[in-house]
């Protein structure tokens, strides 16, 4: 008899304890981080420090290396239920400086997010001399007034053909033209943030060889291109095809 009571009470206890306090999971915040990565034909880009190494080949058949890669992205935004959410006005990426390759954008509210967008470079409205005089990139990226003013969109530099010849792929708003272009990933990578999503990581990748290779072939020379509107426009067209992004959840 005693045993039966004991058994019964144990069962009752377990039953009630299961039914009591259905476990409400704690809501977890979702922090958004954007990572900037760089590849050459799908292989991670390494900055080279020795001129004699020319590990990459462009569509024109030139071997080259990359010693410096710096650029500005602006108006980074996501589309939400409530409209466009601007995440960052201007961000400076310097391949050599790991702290610039990761952009912490704080907590995302619950909702559906889609259409990651950013401008490569600065649009005409933003590309004004001294507009970012207190930003760390000001002196590095400034573009002379004489050539239209504002800032370089990108500086990609290195050797090509041999260790004594250098190319400077410097893009920007030559003579105040707007050669910035927009990346817009569209809807496929829409994601939902709810109480259980956790952190969101977006990776934006630039396939750097694309600057010279698709759809237009560009041949590297030692000549400066900052005053060359035709080339700036071609680079802008090529550039709009070389970005991709992925979204991952924690």
């Amino acid at each position, binding site marked *: 008899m005693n045993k039966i009571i004991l058994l019964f009470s144990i069962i009752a206890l377990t039953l009630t304890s299961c039914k009591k306090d259905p476990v409400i999971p704690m809501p977890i915040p979702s922090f958004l981080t954007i990572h900037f990565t760089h590849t050459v034909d799908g292989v991670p880009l390494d900055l080279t420090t020795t001129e004699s190494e020319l590990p990459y080949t462009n569509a024109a058949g030139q071997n080259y290396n990359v010693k410096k890669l710096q650029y500005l992205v602006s108006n980074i935004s996501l589309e939400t239920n409530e409209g466009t959410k601007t995440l960052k006005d201007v961000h400076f990426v310097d391949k050599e400086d790991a702290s610039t390759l990761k952009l912490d954008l704080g907590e995302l509210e619950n909702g559906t997010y889609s259409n990651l967008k950013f401008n490569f470079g600065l649009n005409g409205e933003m590309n004004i001399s*001294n507009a970012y005089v207190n930003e760390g990139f000001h002196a590095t990226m*400034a573009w002379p007034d004489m050539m239209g003013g504002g800032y370089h969109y990108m500086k990609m530099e290195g050797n090509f053909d041999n260790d004594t010849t250098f190319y400077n792929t410097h893009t920007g708003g030559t003579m105040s033209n707007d050669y910035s272009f927009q990346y817009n990933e569209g809807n496929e990578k829409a994601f939902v943030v709810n109480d259980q999503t956790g952190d969101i990581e977006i990776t934006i990748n630039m396939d750097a060889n694309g600057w010279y290779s698709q759809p237009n072939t560009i041949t590297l020379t030692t000549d400066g*291109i900052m005053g060359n509107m035709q080339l700036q426009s071609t680079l802008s067209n090529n550039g709009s095809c070389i970005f991709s992004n992925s979204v991952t959840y924690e």
Partner: protein
Amino acid sequence: MNKFILLLIFSTLLFACKKEEGCTDPNAINYNCEAEQDDGSCEYLEPFVTTPHSITTPYGFPDMLHPTDNPLTEEGIALGKYLFNNPILSHSNGLACTSCHLQENSFSSPSNFSSNVNGVAVTRNAMALVNLGWANNLAWDGRDIGLESKILGTITNPFSMQGSSDSLQARAEKDAQFMTLFAAAFNNEDITIENAAKSLAQYIRTLVSANSKFDRYLKGEEQLSVSELGGYAIFNSEKGDCFHCHGTQQFANNQFHNNGLDPEPFTDLGLGAITGNTADNGKFRSTTLRNIEHTAPYMHDGRFATLEEVVEHYNSGGVWSSNIDPNMKKVGVGLQLTNQEKQDLVAYLMTLTDDEFITTN
């Protein structure tokens, strides 16, 4: 018995009314420890005050870098200026900052290598002191972060002034003017080289140059000659490519580059000696070109006596080394400037002269 209680209450009341009056604030100089009631008679020492000094940010300059523990004050600047021009900080031999940083040379030295406190030549050209409130990595090789630490290093370095707080204190006692200036700036703080360095840093932050002919041209107040305008165009386009390292209104990016002076192996490793990274060998800071007309000789070792020689160096394309900056993209070929274009470039560089800066302050 009741009467007795009444008396007691009465007397306490009376007593209370008779409370001693005086100054009850223990921070006052006439604090009265007996006083129970404050009568408003407290008197205080004059608080130590300094007069804040502010610098207007010139057009196109970022906000000035200010360490929070060393704000600009009129008194600090006055002391700094006094110390700059007075040998009180050096160990012996009467060396002052101004021995190597002369105002008429935009606070640089006309000799390649100035002599240190022991009469031995230093191994670098004394730098011009212009707009350093906007530079953080100091010296030709960037080894010093911030003016205060750079100056403290100069004061104590046995290869420079070899000074110490002890030697400063010993001399200070005999220098009434120093004592007055120090007390005004630092009140009753100890006389140390740290405080001396703070005041010197303040003074150097006031050495702002932004009123050159070129600045006045930008404001529409003055015209540039045809030759100067020609130089402006070379400087600011990839024809000369100077702007990539000496750009913005500061005419400096204060970053480290190898501008093709020497082949390897380098005798002076520059930044490489500080970072230990061979890729940094032969890199030096690209400093401001403001007042460049007055800061000859040029480069970290003063190898070029004139601006014409400097322009000739860049025109040659520079000397190739494995660390040469990719912006020196005409290495081996040269910029191929005509004689007129070289003259134009020099003429433009001379529009960066600020006569006021050289003469007043």
